């Protein structure tokens, strides 16, 4: 790799496409970029091994869309790992990016190489997401040992071989929480209940059936944990029903004796670097604002996977990230299509966090997939694309739930008819 001295006096390594994160997003992006002819390609990952969170997801259910097979997380990851090896893609593990700037200079540190500075032509942000911790919820009570985010517990059980506890309450019905409910039972623990503050689960329906119903674990909708007891180790939690303003209803409290509380109360895209580089952010997705090539407002900086918006299925993470990899390759190879104009895509009624948020018109238009979450459960509705007041496109949907990402595919020819400066997507009864 060519090197030169930069402003800081540190040696700089030039890279065409630098990918941050070697989870499913980074792997798919790297494979696509290499297949498009990018030779100078490097993935940086902070973990000891590539594969991201898939490594600890030993349950099955991965790959149904992409491979029409039911794989475990490690099996799914292995397919991409094998392809990366075939393509001879460089990956630096145990490497933490500690600085990044808009000139695409990336500073990283690792046990093996120390401090390194890379100067990239294109960067793909693929850092994934993290779990919302207990502190962020400000649940009253004590702060004993025995409170874990579900993903941390999953790592302890599946990677390190230790049981966090034996009598478990789960707060929140995110997918990792549901998966861990079953996992804890299979390891001999007792899972007393799963409390969800909303009137619907934020997890996939199949996980509710296979992880809760099949093991007779009650799903307490409109319930939350209002107090935590135990000074050293968790001893019990108090669960109560909530009203329509999500406030606890007096008299509905139930106390559960338990030694473990697992939290599955939301995933937050890990966008520290995205903010540091100065990319425009979306409040709705907590990820970057991107166009239909997954490029942020910073030229040559792309984002994909859970760092962009939290997906339900890894299959879609891979698909989206491959697209980002191709776009980054096009950018570096000077194949990016000329943009005639760009318009904003806005969340209309019922729609939260549509991605992409910008639409670029090129001389060879392609269909564009929009993904978003509905703000509540809807049945028999239409998802409409509005160009000003005009309904430019409409699709019927039988059921929409916040627990499952919704999508529509906007045909290229419809796009050509847009005349406004922005379009919006809405759910209509």
């Amino acid at each position, binding site marked *: 790799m060519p090197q030169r001295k930069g402003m800081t006096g540190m040696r700089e390594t030039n890279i065409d496409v630098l990918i941050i994160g070697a989870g499913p997003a980074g792997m798919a992006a790297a494979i696509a970029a290499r297949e498009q002819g990018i030779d100078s390609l490097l993935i940086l990952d902070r973990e000891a091994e590539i594969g991201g969170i898939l490594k600890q997801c030993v349950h099955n259910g991965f790959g149904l869309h992409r491979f029409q097979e039911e794989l475990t997380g490690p099996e799914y990851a292995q397919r991409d790992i094998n392809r990366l090896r075939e393509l001879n893609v460089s990956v630096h593990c145990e490497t933490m990016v500690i600085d990044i700037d808009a000139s695409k200079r990336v500073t990283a540190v690792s046990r093996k190489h120390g401090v390194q*500075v890379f100067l990239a032509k294109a960067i793909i942000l693929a850092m994934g997401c993290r779990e919302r911790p207990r502190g962020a919820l400000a649940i009253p009570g004590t702060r004993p040992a025995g409170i874990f985010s579900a993903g941390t517990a999953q790592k302890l059980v599946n990677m390190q071989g230790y049981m966090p506890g034996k009598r478990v309450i789960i707060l929140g019905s995110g997918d990792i929480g549901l998966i861990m409910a079953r996992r804890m039972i299979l390891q001999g623990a007792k899972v007393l209940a799963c409390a969800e503050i909303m009137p619907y689960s934020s997890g996939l329906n199949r996980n509710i059936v296979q992880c809760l119903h099949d093991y007779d674990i009650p799903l307490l909708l409109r319930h939350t944990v209002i107090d935590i007891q135990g000074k050293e180790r968790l001893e019990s939690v108090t669960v109560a029903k909530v009203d329509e303003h999500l406030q606890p209803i007096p008299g509905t409290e139930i106390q559960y004796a338990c030694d473990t509380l697992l939290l599955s109360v939301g995933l937050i895209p890990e966008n520290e670097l995205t903010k540091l580089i100065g990319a425009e952010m979306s409040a709705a997705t907590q990820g970057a604002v991107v166009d239909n090539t997954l490029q942020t407002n910073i030229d040559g900086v792309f984002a994909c996977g859970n760092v962009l918006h939290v997906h339900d299925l890894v299959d879609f993470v891979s698909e989206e990230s491959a697209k980002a990899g191709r776009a980054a390759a096009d950018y570096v190879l000077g194949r990016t299509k000329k943009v005639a104009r760009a318009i904003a895509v806005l969340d209309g009624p019922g729609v939260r966090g549509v991605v992409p948020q910008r639409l670029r018109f090129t001389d060879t238009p392609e269909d564009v997939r929009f993904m978003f979450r509905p703000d509540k459960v809807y049945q028999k509705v239409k998802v409409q694309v509005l160009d000003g007041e005009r309904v430019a496109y409409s699709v019927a949907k039988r059921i929409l739930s916040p627990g499952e990402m919704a999508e529509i595919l906007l045909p290229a020819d419809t796009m050509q008819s847009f005349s406004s400066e922005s379009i919006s997507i809405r759910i209509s009864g």
Partner: protein
Amino acid sequence: MKQKIVIIGGGVIGCAVARELSAYDADILLVERAIDVSEGASKANSGLAHAGFDNKPGSNKAKFNIQGSKMLEALCRELSVPYKRNGAMVLAFDDTQTAVLHELLQQGMVNGVDGMEIIGRDRILALEPHTNPRVVAALHVKSAASVSPYELTYALADHAKVNGVDFQFNTEVRTIKRDLNRFILTTCCGDIPADIVINCAGVGADMLHNQISERKVTITPRKGEYYLLDREVKPMFTHTMFQTPTKMGKGILITPTLHNGLLLGPTATDITDGTDVSTTAEALRQVREITSLTWPQENLKTVITTFSGIRAHEAGGDFIIGAVEGAPGAYEAIGIESPGLSSSPAIGQYLAELIAEQHDLRRKGTRVPPPKYLPPFESMTVEEKAKAYANDPEYGAVVCRCEHITEAEIRAAIRRPVGATTVDGVKRRTRAGMGRCQGGFCSPRVMEILSEELHLRLNQVTKSGGNSRILLARIEDAAAEGDDRHA
């Protein structure tokens, strides 16, 4: 033979006394009921070096606050403890409160506080633009500062230890008895004899004091609850923002932490159990309500955590410091609530000098300097980082991704003279786990490093000692127990 001195309590006061006394030739032991120093009031307070304007003139609080705050800056520099003179404001929202500000100004001048002035609305808003524009006046106190309370306590303990003080943890003193010319301390783990006893036992100090003195004291544990916000809200306030005080204390404030977070609190609730650090919906609501007067655009979306701390309030309302009445050889620092952190260097110095004089302790010829460490990796320039790595490749392994804490720093925290033995001990010494993910990613690795350094099995690692084990069983053990239950 050297005199045996036992200090009861490893908070900032006990450790300050230990460090000062370690300059003298004596056999010094500090006993602490928790697994680490700084596990009581010293780990959870506002972290302020108060200027000293709000103490009653002539009180111990006034005296030790002024002396202590003046010593703190140099002490923190010597011990490499974060300290910042960020200044404070006491806000008044009407004429009655403004009158109180003038009283505080007068009182501050009597107490010997420097750098105070009353400022008007425009100046307040120029200095702190996020302040409620309804504010009418403020007492601006330039000499007020912030200090990391637990980092100070750890550094005091380390410096005491390298100068010969022994530390014994998990040792709760139950009774103090006089036996001829000595004291016998009965503890959970055997009796400890002592020629000189120093009671710095925080919320437990009254129980011990009343066993050896006819002049009874009463400590009421007073709980204060806080919100800690992420450093994303850092630019909001640079000063410590008080409201006009009430009789329950200096009131609920907003203050930037030394690590660029924002702290909101504390409430003041008298409780009976001095170890009850639970938070409550009601107190947290009160924090939000009161701070929103100072900061109307209050944004709690970036809450990192909520917590509470206990301060030891003595019925007389003042610090009780010195020799215990009617018990020669016994000394104490009782009722050390706010401004206890500010006063700690002065209290330590005063008690050490008093004891040295009354017991003819000889000053040692030389003193081991405090251990020196590199500054936090996160705060280094890229060249400094490269240099740190060149000397120790474990600086290349970032364990805590939110705060960029490296494995080198975590191992150093465990290997310090009074080193971390728990996940919380690592957290407070290094900040690993203090960031926005609250240890979700790094705690499994921190536990592994603790188990390696301390030769523990992973499931013996605790959050904060006692029964706070984080993992209850290895998988094969758990599976075996599960089978037993079904049998």
